[in-house]
């Protein structure tokens, strides 16, 4: 039995549904020693802003049971340096999706314009869900009107597919999903990290300098799965599932509840070849389950 791993995200055709999650895969090149980047479904790079950002002061990561908190604060080299120094080194064969961060609608639009012109950028991911920055970020993602307005503004100036990444730190994620779909989002990805904190009783201090951080890793998988399931039931655009994925079984779970593809984040830290191994293991698992292509699997959960 041969297995077809291809999936589509709007006009973007992927050779398999395995993408790296932003902020956990660097600019992609960091992982080149551990596997062939050409085999990945797509590479989503660290959140990029117009100007370089230093991020939050350390300590900015802490391990928690089956997960971790981070408060990196979107440290990045800025769009100019990214386009000059990183993008050209990434393989042609793998779609590169740029995760975007800005503090205002105008900045988002300007950044989107610049990235839209870069030939090698396959799509844009709008990060309206970062919990670790004071301005922008999750503020856009917690208000359906703002989220829609921003999506519309970006869509107006770009021709590449736009994926909007949602925050789980909201009362009703479906509402935000519907708002960005209505505003023209081509794809919706979820979830970003869940707000959290950790304290050190011996020093009477928060473990993170920023006090709060975002929780990720296997610990958040059940929460993510539920939200992906809920959103898939109400929107008709493709959905990309994110949250605690580390095994092929997890990939199949997210797709069964309706995701067209997935992003693997924190699991890249458990071993740097995680994604490359998933690419190899996925067809084997599908064969075992008798799945010939994802058409017969995506959203086919029997409730």
């Amino acid at each position, binding site marked *: 039995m041969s297995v077809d791993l291809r999936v589509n995200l709007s006009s973007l055709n992927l050779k398999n549904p395995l993408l790296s999650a932003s*902020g*956990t*895969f*660097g600019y992609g*090149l*960091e*992982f*080149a*020693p*551990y596997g062939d980047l050409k085999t990945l479904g797509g590479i989503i790079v*660290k959140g990029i802003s117009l100007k370089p950002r*230093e*991020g939050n*002061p*350390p*300590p*900015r*990561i*802490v*391990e928690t*049971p*089956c*997960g*971790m908190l*981070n408060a*990196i604060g979107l*440290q990045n080299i800025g769009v100019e340096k990214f386009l000059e120094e990183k993008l050209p*080194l990434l393989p042609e064969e793998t779609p590169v999706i740029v995760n975007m961060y800005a503090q205002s609608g105008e900045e988002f639009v300007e950044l989107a314009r610049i990235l839209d012109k870069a030939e090698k950028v396959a799509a844009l991911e709008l990060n309206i869900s970062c919990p670790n920055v004071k301005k922008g970020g999750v503020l856009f993602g917690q208000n359906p009107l703002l989220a829609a307005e921003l999506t519309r503004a970006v869509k107006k100036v770009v021709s590449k597919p736009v994926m909007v990444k949602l925050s789980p730190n909201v009362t009703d994620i479906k509402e935000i999903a519907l708002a960005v779909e209505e505003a023209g989002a081509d794809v919706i990805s979820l979830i970003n990290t869940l707000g959290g904190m950790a304290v050190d009783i011996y020093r009477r201090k928060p473990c993170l300098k920023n006090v709060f951080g975002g929780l990720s*890793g*296997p*610990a958040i998988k059940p929460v993510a799965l539920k939200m992906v399931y809920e959103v898939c039931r109400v929107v008709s655009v493709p959905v990309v599932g994110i949250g605690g994925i*580390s095994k092929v079984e997890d990939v199949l779970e997210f797709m069964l509840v309706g995701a067209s593809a997935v992003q693997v984040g*924190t699991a*890249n*830290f*458990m*071993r*740097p*070849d995680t994604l490359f191994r998933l690419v190899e293991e996925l067809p084997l698992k599908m064969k075992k389950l008798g799945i010939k292509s994802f058409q017969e699997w995506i959203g086919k959960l029997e409730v």
Partner: protein
Amino acid sequence: MIQEGLLCKELEVLEVRPIPGSPVAHLFLEPLNLPFTPGQFVMLRPKLWEYDPLWPRPFSICDLNSEYLQIFFQVVGKGTNLLLALRPGDKVTCWGPLGQGFPVADRALLLCGGMGIAPFIALCKQHPHPERLKLLFGHRLPLEVYPWQDISDKVEKRASRQESEEELLLFEEELRESIWQYAGKGKIFACGPHPFLKVVHKYLVESKAQGYLSLENRMACGVGACLGCVARTRQGLVQTCTKGPVFKAEELEL
């Protein structure tokens, strides 16, 4: 920029050798057939760890030859306790050698505090002229628990134990004197706990010595991707795992 040949490997545990009555142990793994520079480290994650601990743990390469990869570690928390429980034949996922080690130095003064001795074991073994090395070791546990004998007697080595605040102050004074005396004569390398490094850093900067410090920052990925391990340098916040762990003293803001 892309480092070739650094695969993620599953290495078999050859031996775990605890030092009786102490919180330290040696871990011997199948060797990696890769060259390394002393000061470089590896990330280790036993296959038995499913989701908790989640992250791998970073350790300096204490020795790496055709027979084994040696790690010298102290049991401090969950992860290191689990390392201690490994049995021969267990598999450990390992990636490395990672980061920037100590630069080549014909002559060097090596300053180590406690477990900071680990990378200097390899450095002393590899150095073509161990008689040109000088080593000062400050430690809290009895000297016998450390691999002190693995350092050739050709190295001009001195150990000094600190069990009280007073002894710590005396050692600080000794560090100050050694650094000022050695400044201008060769490179000075240091590895140890943060308070030790802070003291060393201060004297290195004051004496304008050619100093290098190895940092132990909390790490998740070890490959420069998560940006969790950053250190403050003159170039801003940079990854300790790829730009370090060994940094030029004058570059660092501790």
